[in-house]
C-alpha cells in the first residue's frame, strides 16, 4: 500500500508485528511503520469483525488501534516506534482479561 522513498537514511528500529520481526525508520510512528511493512489491516472491529487500517494518521479516527507491548487500544499514529516493541494487531474490542493474565504470567 505504501513504499518508502529511496535514500532517506536514518537509523533502523527493530520491532515485531504479531511475533514476526520487522524494521522501521527511527522517527516513524507505529502506524507509519505498519504501513511501510506492507500490513493491510491493523485490527478488526468489535461490532462486525471488519478489517480496518489507519485512516487519518493524526489521532482523530481511532482506526489504527493496536496492542503495543501488551496494552490494547493504543493509537498507533501517535506513538513513535521503539526498538524491541511488540506490536499486535487487535481482534475486536480490547480484552482486559487477556492483558491482565498476560501481566500475571510475566510476574
Amino acid at each position, binding site marked *: *500500500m*505504501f*513504499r*518508502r*522513498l529511496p535514500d*532517506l*537514511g*536514518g537509523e533502523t528500529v527493530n520491532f515485531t508485528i504479531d511475533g514476526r520481526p520487522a524494521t522501521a*525508520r527511527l*522517527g*516513524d*510512528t507505529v502506524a*507509519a*511503520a505498519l*504501513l*511501510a511493512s506492507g500490513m*493491510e*489491516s491493523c485490527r478488526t*472491529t468489535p*461490532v*462486525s469483525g*471488519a*478489517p*480496518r*487500517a*489507519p*485512516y*487519518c*494518521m*493524526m*489521532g*482523530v*479516527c*481511532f*482506526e489504527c*488501534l493496536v496492542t503495543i507491548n501488551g*496494552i490494547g*487500544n493504543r493509537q498507533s*499514529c*501517535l*506513538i*513513535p516506534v521503539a526498538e524491541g516493541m511488540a506490536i499486535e494487531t487487535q481482534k475486536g474490542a480490547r480484552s482486559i482479561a487477556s492483558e491482565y493474565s498476560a501481566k500475571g504470567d510475566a510476574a
Partner: protein
Amino acid sequence: MKTIKDVAALSECYDLLVIGAGPAGMAAAATGAEQGLSTLLIDENPAPGGQIYRGITTTPVAAKETLGADYWRGTDLVRDLTASEATYAPETTVWSVGPAAEGPSDPGRMEVGVSVGGAARLIQARQVIAATGALERPFPIPGWTLPGVMTAGGAQIALKTSGLVPDGRVVVAGSGPLLYLLTAQLRAAGAKISVMLDTTPHENWGRAIRYASDFLRSPYLGKGLKLLLGAHRGMRIVRGITAIEADGDSRVRSVRFRHGSKEEELPCDVLLLHQGVVPNINLANAVGCALDWDDDQLTWVPQTDEWYETSVKGFTIAGDGAGIGGAESAALRGRLAALGAGHRLGRLSAKDRDQMAAPVRTELMRAGRGRRFLDVLYRPAKAFRVPKADDTIVCRCEEVTAGKLRETVALGVAGPNQMKSFLRCGMGPCQGRLCGLTVTELIADTRGVSPNEVGGYRLRPPIKPITLGELAALPKTPAAIKAVER
C-alpha cells in the same frame, strides 16, 4: 524552550496553557512567553508542527521542493518557539478542561487533565488557549472503511513524517485547494496517481464568481494556478463526479464513480479522500463553549470575541479550531489570542495590547483575502455529506449506516444526542469526530430543518481515552471522596 516528557515534571499551575503545537499554538506559546507568562505548550505528537507543518523538525524528505515553500515557512514558527521561555510537552494528551474547583479566586482559572505515557495528572492554568486546529471533513461513501482507503491528509502525514508514498494504483478523490496541494506533494515525491476524481459541483463556480475579485488580488491565486496547471500534467482528472464507491473484500480493490450519465470502475489499491477541513471542536464542545452552525463552511464554529475568547471565560480558541482560515491566518490568530490572554492576566494594558495587535490584524486581513471565494467554490456537494445509499456507514466506530439513521429519525428521534441512545452512533472511541457533522446534517435533511435546529453531539470529558488506572491514581479532594462514601 524547555521540553518536558514526564508528567511529574509539570508545574502545579501555569499562567497560560496552550493546547496543540500547530501554527496557532506555536505562535500563541511564543507570544505568551515573550510577555513573561509562565507558558506550557502541550501536544499529542512527538514533534511540533501540527498537521500542516507536521514533522517539520524531523522529516526525512530533504528535497525542499517536494513539500514546497509553504511547508518550510513553518520553520520560522518553530524557531521563535524554540527561542522562547515556553515549556513544551510533546506526546502529551489533554483529556479534560474545566473550571478549577479550589485555589485563589482567579476568574477563569481552569483545571486541566493531562496524560503522558500512561500517567495522568491534574494541573491548573489561569488562561487556556486551545489551538486544536482542524480535521478533514468526514467523507462518507460506500466502502470508506476498507483498508486502503485513507484521507489524503493521512497520506500527506505519512509522507512528511516517514517519507512514505502510496504505492500501486492510487486514486485521489474529492475537492478543495488542499486536495490539489496534497496531490502535488505526493506526485513530487514520486507517487503515481492514476486519476483524480474532482467532486466540486459545477454550480459552485457560478456562486463563487462574485467573490472572485478579492481572490484575484490574493496570494491564493498564484498558488492555485500553479497547482491546477501542474495537476493537468500526466494525470487524468475527471470533473463533475456525483457518486463514488470503494469496493473490495479485505481491502479496497476498485473504485466506482459516476460523472454525468457515465459510470466507470477502475482497479485501485489506495483511495485517498478529501473534501476540505473543518474545525476540530471536540475540546471546545466538552468545555461547554457555545457553538454556531456556519452555513458557508458547513460546520460548527465556536462563538469567539475579537481576542478569540469563547463563551467560557478564560478559554480561548486560536487558529482553525475557531473557523477555517489556513496556516498563515492560524499563526496570526495565535498571536492575537496570546495578547488577549496577556491583557486578561494583567500583563499588558489595553493600549499596549491593541498597539501590538494592530500590525497582526493588518496581516490577518491580508491573509484572509480570497478565502471566501475558496469557501464558496469548494463547498462540498450534498451527495458527499449526506449519503444517499442506505448501506453507507456513517459512524465508523459503531458501524451505523445512513439507512439506519434515517429509519430512526422516522421513529421520531429529533437530534444527535437521542440518536446515541438508539444507535450508539458517536459513542465509539472517536467520540463523533468522524460522524458528528454527517449525523447532524443527515437528521436535518431527513426532518427538513436546519442543522442549527438539530444541534450536535453534546460531548463530555474525557475527550481522549484514559485508563481507569490513570483516573484512579489521580489525587482526590476530600469533597470528592466524601461524595462516594457511605
